[in-house]
């Protein structure tokens, strides 16, 4: 994610940037009116003469608020760490001047730091907490009638927490960013800090040179602009002014015999008792205040809202816009009414009728000897005479599955898995994964399912974000986990030899768990407790964790069962990951075909047919990539296998909408089946359903003269809402942003919003993302744009982030892309906007057949043909048609074109000059 910073008032940038009287260095982003000096009598124990007056420098936006006639809702007391100063909070001061949500922000320079007085004393933690109390008393904050919220970074977290514990009467909230209040000594402190703490090194690093300062400033991501770097250094120009940095570093109270240790333990313990609203904003790329310090804080304040900024480094306020989220959070928490989350919980959809536990069907069939889950072996194993026999690798009856789940549940409890613990399952789909999932849910553990398709880096990020307590994996996963540092106590799927066990850090194994006797004393299940964490595709930025509760998981089961009318006992080929787990919950018999699960496109027609024939399956769930490969390999089918597929009554392709021609070819392979290609996303699956028949009808309607069905066309028809789901759009305004009225009026283009009992509970540890996604409490914003037609069908027009905001209004890309792709010689097309938002012009970027040798403008004749086709279909006037050998796509799907990248590339290409590769 690019650094986003709210635009600071222009007069504070550049050569005219504000200067404070105490420095020649310009301070971009600071209003000089904020700078003030206060002299306060000190009560710090370190002072040899009690009551000695000390001079403080602060940035305080009170005067600016007053000048603007704004009455603040409260005060943010912002405390920097080492070796920064109040400059760190300049954006928060500016954001506090929002007339709709005014906050006074008092950002202090701690004594001996920034532009505050150099006292010449070694101020320890206890002194600093006293110092802050002296200051707030002098400022009158101790008698504030409005809330005081502490905001802190780095070691400011400890100081401000110490202050908070002593001012319970006014302290009403906590915001912490990349900090720590405790280090338990069980793990070594981070290497970079250890270096600074080494007595020989730290004087050298912190006082004689600006090295410590430089390292700290280098911990910003992306690197700071030179003028900002200069502003951070401004108060630390000389060795004398830097000396306190050394003291600050030396006062990091790690060893138990450290003079500040007791105070440190006392504050850390006190924080656990704070029950005020809290927000933790965390850059996950911080080599000093690593993820475990966040987890420590979450353990102390489990009610806190958390937002993790993937990859952002230590100086989080420089790396990301935190002022926006902080102000949003303050408005939400202290705005007077219920919070958005509270409203969302009230208004969102819940299933009608009593909650039926996810595993209820499995419990009912615990005596059933019929097959529940079947795993297929590689079909190449059976050749020649036995080629018609489907090779089954493993099979569990309902009774066996129920018994296995009971034993695993007992085993998990036995090794210490507690309700709410997160268990990462790195096991391929099949009977073993199924049993583990149901066992985890049975004991109240939260199943974390990360798709290996995210790639090692994406997977590692996702897993560190979810922070599982346990990792159950096949050997390959344990090896990768060892190398990549995945969290969680290791449980091996197989029994390993002692050497491997030790090498991979394995504590337990599944065969061992299965030896446990079933227990009756399982923890009571809570329908509203977390059940699973799934991950988004990561096609737009890092994958996001999505949390479902037990109630929502049951609703997903009911939505799928209800929409597709899957009777108990139906044979189901489970080739689409999230739905594969629904089989036993729906009472269907599931078979997992032989395929490499990390690459859906490895599913062959033969493997599919073998799986279908093994259980006489009538329903098939597949991903689009798998379907493409099945069609590509269908020539290898013999007559018997063709007949197995001819028995299929329902095919469901989930993941991305399948184009009509592909569906037509699929229909020929499964002539008896109704083909469904539902629309949905990790946050709500499925939301709509559409059949090939409906798609054909919709196509006819969109081509019909005289607009027989108002709104038909301009997009991909994804049908109507599934069982239990409600959909609408929020019309886009002229600037491309969605409004807040939900409508289903025909032809109104807007962001698609969904309300359903099976929509996610929340994003995991992404408070700001969740806040935005529930901007209309009760609804989930999908980030897609589309419209309804008069027949109530939804047409998807693209991603909200990809709409083109032209001078004439908002344009959506999908229909234009489809029209362009129909031109002979044209492959995949992305239509992107070029130019400034509000004045963008649409440009088509196309792959060609045969592929272009190099990126550049299309041949003028081809450009003309594409422009004409697009104009005919949509009325859109393409400014240009560019071609390139291959679109940049995200690795996981190899299907989603990276449009943001393309738009930037097209912008540069069409500005003139040489054209580079995107």
């Amino acid at each position: 994610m690019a650094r986003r910073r709210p635009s600071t008032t222009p007069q504070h940038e550049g050569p005219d940037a504000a200067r404070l009287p105490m420095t020649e260095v310009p301070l971009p982003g600071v209003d000089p009116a904020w700078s003030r000096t206060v002299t306060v009598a000190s009560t710090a124990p370190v002072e040899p003469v009690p009551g000695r007056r000390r001079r403080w420098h602060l940035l305080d936006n009170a005067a600016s608020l007053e000048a603007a006639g704004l009455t603040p809702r409260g005060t943010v007391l912002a405390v920097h760490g080492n070796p920064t100063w109040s400059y760190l909070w300049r954006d928060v001061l500016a954001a506090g001047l929002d007339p709709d949500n005014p906050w006074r922000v008092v950002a202090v320079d701690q004594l001996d730091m920034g532009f505050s007085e150099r006292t010449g004393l070694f101020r320890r933690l206890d002194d600093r907490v006293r110092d802050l109390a002296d200051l707030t008393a002098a400022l009158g904050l101790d008698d504030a009638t409005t809330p005081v919220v502490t905001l802190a970074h780095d070691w400011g977290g400890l100081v401000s927490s110490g202050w908070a514990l002593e001012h319970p009467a006014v302290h009403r909230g906590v915001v912490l960013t990349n900090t720590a209040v405790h280090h338990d000594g069980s793990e070594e402190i981070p290497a970079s800090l250890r270096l600074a703490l080494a007595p020989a090194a730290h004087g050298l690093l912190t006082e004689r040179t600006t090295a410590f300062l430089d390292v700290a400033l280098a911990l910003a991501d992306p690197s700071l602009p030179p003028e900002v770097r200069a502003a951070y250094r401004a108060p630390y120009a000389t060795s004398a002014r830097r000396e306190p940095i050394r003291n600050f570093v030396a006062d990091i109270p790690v060893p138990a015999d450290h003079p500040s240790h007791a105070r440190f333990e006392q504050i850390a313990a006190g924080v656990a008792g704070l029950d005020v609203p809290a927000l933790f904003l965390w850059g996950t790329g911080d080599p000093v205040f690593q993820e475990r310090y966040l987890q420590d804080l979450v353990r102390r304040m489990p009610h806190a809202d958390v937002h993790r900024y993937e990859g952002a480094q230590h100086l989080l306020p420089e790396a990301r816009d935190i002022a926006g989220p902080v102000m949003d959070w303050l408005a939400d928490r202290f705005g007077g009414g219920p919070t958005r989350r509270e409203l969302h919980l009230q208004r969102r959809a819940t299933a009608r009728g009593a909650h039926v536990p996810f595993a209820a069907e499995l419990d009912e069939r615990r005596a059933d000897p019929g097959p529940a889950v079947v795993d297929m072996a590689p079909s190449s194993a059976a050749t020649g005479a036995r080629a018609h026999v489907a090779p089954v690798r493993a099979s569990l009856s309902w009774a066996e599955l129920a018994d296995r789940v009971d034993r695993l549940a007992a085993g998990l409890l036995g090794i210490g898995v507690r309700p709410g613990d997160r268990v990462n399952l790195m096991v391929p789909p099949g009977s073993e994964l199924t049993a583990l999932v149901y066992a985890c849910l049975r004991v109240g553990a939260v199943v974390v399912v990360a798709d290996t398709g995210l790639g090692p880096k994406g997977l590692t990020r996702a897993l560190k974000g979810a922070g599982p307590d346990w990792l159950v994996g096949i050997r390959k996963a344990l090896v990768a986990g060892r190398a990549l540092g995945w969290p969680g106590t290791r449980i091996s799927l197989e029994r390993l030899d002692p050497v491997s066990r030790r090498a991979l850090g394995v504590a337990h194994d599944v065969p061992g768990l299965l030896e446990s006797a079933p227990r009756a004393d399982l923890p009571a299940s809570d329908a509203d407790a977390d059940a699973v964490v799934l991950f988004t595709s990561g096609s737009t930025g890092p994958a996001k964790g999505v949390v479902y509760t037990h109630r929502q998981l049951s609703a997903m089961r009911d939505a799928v069962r209800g929409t597709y009318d899957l009777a108990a006992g139906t044979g189901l080929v489970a080739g689409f990951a999230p739905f594969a787990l629904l089989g036993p919950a729906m009472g269907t018999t599931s078979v997992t075909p032989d395929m490499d699960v990390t690459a859906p496109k490895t599913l062959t027609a033969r493997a599919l047919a073998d799986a279908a024939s093994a259980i006489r399956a009538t329903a098939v769930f597949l991903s689009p990539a798998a379907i493409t490969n099945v069609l590509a390999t269908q020539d290898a089918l013999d007559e018997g296998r063709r007949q197995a597929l001819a028995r299929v009554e329902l095919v469901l392709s989930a993941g991305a909408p399948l184009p009509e021609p592909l569906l037509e070819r699929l229909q020929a392979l499964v002539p008896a089946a109704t083909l469904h290609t539902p629309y949905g996303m990790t946050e709500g699956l499925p939301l709509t359903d559409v059949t090939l028949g409906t798609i054909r009808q919709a196509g006819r309607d969109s081509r019909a003269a005289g607009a027989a069905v108002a709104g038909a066309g301009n997009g991909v028809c994804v049908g109507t809402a599934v069982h239990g789901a409600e959909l609408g759009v929020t019309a886009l305004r002229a600037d491309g942003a969605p409004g807040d009225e939900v409508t289903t009026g025909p032809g109104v283009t807007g962001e698609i919003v969904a309300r359903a009992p099976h929509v996610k509970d929340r994003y995991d540890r992404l408070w700001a993302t969740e806040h935005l996604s529930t901007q209309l409490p009760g609804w989930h914003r999908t980030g897609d744009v589309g419209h309804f037609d008069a027949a109530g069908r939804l047409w998807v027009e693209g991603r909200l982030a990809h709409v083109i905001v032209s001078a004439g209004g908002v344009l959506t890309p999908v229909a234009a892309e489809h029209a362009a792709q129909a031109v002979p010689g044209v492959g995949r097309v992305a239509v992107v906007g070029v130019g400034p938002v509000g004045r963008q012009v649409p440009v088509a970027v196309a792959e060609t057949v045969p592929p272009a040798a190099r990126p550049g403008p299309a041949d003028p004749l081809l450009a003309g043909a594409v422009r004409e086709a697009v104009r005919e279909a949509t009325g859109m006037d393409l400014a240009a048609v560019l071609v390139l050998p291959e679109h940049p796509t995200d690795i996981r799907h190899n299907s989603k074109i990276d449009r943001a990248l393309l738009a930037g590339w097209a912008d540069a290409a069409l500005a003139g000059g040489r054209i580079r590769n995107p």
Partner: protein
Amino acid sequence: MNGKHRKDGPHDDRVPAYDASVTEGAPAAGTGSHGVERGPRELSGQGRTVLVTGASGMLGEHVARLLAARNWTVRLLQRRHAPLADRSDVEEVLGSVTDPDAVARALEGVDDVVHLAAKVSFAGDWDEFVMTNVTGTRVLLETAKRAGVENVVFVSSPSVAHTGVSIVGEPARPADPVHARGNYARSKAAAELLALEADGRRLRVTAVRPHIVWGPGDTQLVERIAERAARGRMPLLDHGAALIDTTYIDNAAEAIVRALERIEWAHGQALVVTNGQPRTVGELISGFCRAVGVQPPTRRVPGAVARLAGTLIEKVWAVRPGTDEPPMTAFLAEQMSTAHWFDQRTTREVLDWTPAVTVEEGMRRLAEHYRTHPLGAHDAPVPATGSTAADRG
């Protein structure tokens, strides 16, 4: 639409200066109702005389014809007699815009002026540009004030604000005589500043900047490009991918006439006029060539090399001028290798106008024209020196 743009009128507090000449159907003038708020009104040509300078060029001629069709009495100021003046509803005064006497004669009894006359060239002496473009404009404006002219439309060029960097979706920026590229653009920039400075209570002045005007019979751009391409002298710069705005001739003429009709909204500002359909340079050149019937260029030259070559050629040309324009100038190279397309929202709102002819329709008309008038069949194009009208932003 009266009143629709009232809030956008740049000078709401002004009393219209020409009560006697407002659109038919307006309240009778001189009723003494000074305190009554009245919105801006569009001009009608009925009963009004307009002087058009530079009507010997393609754009000037189109503008003159259109004004005549809108009931203006049209008078032309030009150096040589043109067939257009043979029409019964068109008067003609022969002379140069730099000659105060000729201008004074031409302005007798004139209500409105559309000033297109300019020296348009990619090369040439600075003094010549100043004489025609700056002095000519000054003479015209000063004489117009004395003659009681009410409205002036100064036809300018977006190049007056083009400093060589790409322009992507921006509105009209102020004319910049110091940083504009080339003598033509610098002199036009100075002239535009003069013209807009003259805008006031009694004389209203607006500047319209049509960007790259083209159309059938266009000797300046279309035929020049086609001829160079036919001779293999028309390389594409870089990939020919720079996105540029152009204006089909009919749209440019209509916009200029609208600027006069809506001068109450338009005065005091410069408006860039384009088709609002940016296209890549390569596609435009290829389209022109195909329409004229010659092979489009395929040779590519890096933009930086072309700019350098252009600068050198310009210098050589200044010492030893050829008979034609230099094959490439730094200005032309820049124009063809950097994006320049504009935000047309203000223009369209102020003029209450949208282009009627799309780029594609224009290309069809161009091809139709050259099918019936093949390029080699008539006299070779006249070199674009001296006072002509078509503008080549």
